[in-house]
């Protein structure tokens, strides 16, 4: 949820609640005031009746006007309690109105009214006085006030919404600018995050923090890169010395069988060491996205080349190789794709059994490399660094590197075990 949406929601809900509560209080207050006003009118009327009775010693005529009715009824002395009541007021329609209406229509209607029940004695007779006044005007007034209030609430909400949308949108603009810069930020780039121009302190602070942070990240990254390069240099040089010394050593003739066995083992170990080191460096570079140059590659030709390269190795293990290659081009770094192919095919050879089978299928959609081997499926751990099956001569980085290469080009590398075949799939989709 967007901050502004969330803010608007809270804002709206509280505004509506506050407005509703206020309007209820408002309504009640107006009602109270108006009812009091009515009651005063009724009292005045009552006074008039009393004074009439006092002076004339008889009841006034039952009086009826447009909005007032006074009735007198004889009652048992002392049975009437003086009180104000909410009641109904029967309003007769005008004669003209009735004439217009169809016959059978009621001659009047009930509206809400306010009444005062009182009593008086004329001679020895006890009378109940009922004065009813129509409240319809009061109610109309209340209704108008209420409608206006609701109208104002709605208008206010609308204005709030619109201004929020406009102002908040503009107010948050620096934030979105910073976000955009951050999204485009690439640690390997030389491009710096721009300093934005805003009068809002919070955004200025955020911007400063972002600029400082990315600057530091870049510096750290640069240091790391330098470190990696230095480490490679420092490590490769001694390996190079060992290698060259071995090459020199074997020029000094006359070795016993035992000595040559030892030398062979040394050679093997050194070449493993150097391959391991190179794999690590490659992995670091891949993970840092340093290998960015790309070209159009004919994958079909590349796979064919790899298969030819492996020819002797297939023969050595008496492996049967079956392949169908469709033409397929991808846009990537040729070196990396070669490494990927070599890794996958090496794996298919290394973990195969003598006289086994390798099947390579290249289609527009995917590259599939299947091999026979162990009868048990492998877990996804095979893609982890330095995960090795027992007795494997590899560096344990081959599949990690392969997956990283695939990720570099938004390809997916997955493993399946399918009826005795170990299947590696590079999905181009």
């Amino acid at each position: 949820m967007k901050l502004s949406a969330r803010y608007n929601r809270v804002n709206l809900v509280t505004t509506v609640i506050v407005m509703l509560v206020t309007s209820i209080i408002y309504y009640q207050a107006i009602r109270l005031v108006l009812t009091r006003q009515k009651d005063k009118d009724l009292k005045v009327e009552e006074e008039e009746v009393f004074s009439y009775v006092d002076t004339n010693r008889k009841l006034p005529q039952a009086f009826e006007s447009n909005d007032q009715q006074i009735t007198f009824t004889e009652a048992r002395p002392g049975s009437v309690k003086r009180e104000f009541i909410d009641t109904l007021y029967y309003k007769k329609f005008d004669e003209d109105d009735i004439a217009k209406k169809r016959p059978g229509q009621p001659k009047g209607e009930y509206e809400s009214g306010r009444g005062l029940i009182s009593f008086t004695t004329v001679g020895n007779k006890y009378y109940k006085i009922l004065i009813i006044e129509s409240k319809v005007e009061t109610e109309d007034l209340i209704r108008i006030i209420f409608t206006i209030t609701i109208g104002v609430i709605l208008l206010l909400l609308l204005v709030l919404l619109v201004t929020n949308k406009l102002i908040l949108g503009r107010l948050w603009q620096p934030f979105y600018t910073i976000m955009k810069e951050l999204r485009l930020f690439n640690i390997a780039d030389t491009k710096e995050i721009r300093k934005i121009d805003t009068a809002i302190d919070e955004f200025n602070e955020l911007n400063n923090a972002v600029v400082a942070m990315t600057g530091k990240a870049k510096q750290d990254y640069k240091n790391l890169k330098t470190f990696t390069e230095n480490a490679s240099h420092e490590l490769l040089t001694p390996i190079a010395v060992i290698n060259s010394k071995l090459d020199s050593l074997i020029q000094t003739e006359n070795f016993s069988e035992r000595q040559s066995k030892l030398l062979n083992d040394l050679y093997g170990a050194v070449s493993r060491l150097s391959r391991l080191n190179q794999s690590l460096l490659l992995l670091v570079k891949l993970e840092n996205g340093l290998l960015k140059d790309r070209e159009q590659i004919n994958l079909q030709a590349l796979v064919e080349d790899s298969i030819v390269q492996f020819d002797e190795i297939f023969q050595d293990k008496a492996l049967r190789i079956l392949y169908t290659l469709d033409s397929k081009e991808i846009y990537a770094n040729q070196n990396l794709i070669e490494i990927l192919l070599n890794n996958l095919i090496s794996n298919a050879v290394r973990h195969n059994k003598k006289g086994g089978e390798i099947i390579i299928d290249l289609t527009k959609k995917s590259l599939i490399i299947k091999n026979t081997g162990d009868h048990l499926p492998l877990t996804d751990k095979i893609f982890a660094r330095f995960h090795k099956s027992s007795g494997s001569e590899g560096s344990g980085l081959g599949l990690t590197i392969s997956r990283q290469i695939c990720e570099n080009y938004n390809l997916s590398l997955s493993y399946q075990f399918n009826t005795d075949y170990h299947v590696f799939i590079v999905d181009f989709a």
Partner: protein
Amino acid sequence: MKSKKSPFRKKIQNLSKIKVVHLRKKDLKILIIEDEEGLCESIEEYFTGDGNICETASNYRDAMAKISLYRYDCILLDITLPGGNGIDILKIIKENNYPDCVLIISAKNSLDDKLQGLNLGADDYLVKPFHLSELKARVSAIIRRKTFSGSNLLLFNEITIDLLAKEVRVDNVPIKLTRKEYSLMLYFIANKGKVVSKNAIAEHLWGDGIDMANNFDFIYSHIKNIRRKLMEAGCNDYIKAAYGMGYKFTE
């Protein structure tokens, strides 16, 4: 600087050019610019002999001094040097139009360096660690390319290799070699008289991308095939096994 070459310098240059022509047959003059003493020594030892002369420089200043005074057939150039950068040395060689071949040997296996080196006019680029035999083969190839003079033939006793047609003849009878066998043949001739380890051969033929551990049986079958083909054509058996560690191409 360029235009103000002293007559003396010019003379030396001309002399060295004449010398190159003379040396082309066999003797090479090589400058090894490498700060790692152990490596420098090994390279020097491997290249010296057979009429070849090696000089070494272990820092930027020494290297610059030697380059400004003498011409070499090939300069083996390390990028990271005490006191300076090998790339700068390469720039100076190219700015002055020195004819020396340059092979960069670097521990920096970064594509940027490689491209920069090759773009600046280096003839080849080899990443540490490498086998001395590989280095020798690369140097031979560079010098063959540079001194190419119409006939692109490599002669060794009764063996003639046509480098353009990629054809090997024994006493003028062509023999059919596969791509790898041909490449191996050149490798042996470049390293003649030296024991070449199986590791070096495997890396040369398959690259270090193919990591097949220590199984070198398939190298053996290649060697066997080459020997058979050569001997069937009446060639002497020059390829000798060396203590189970490698092979030696020798007269």
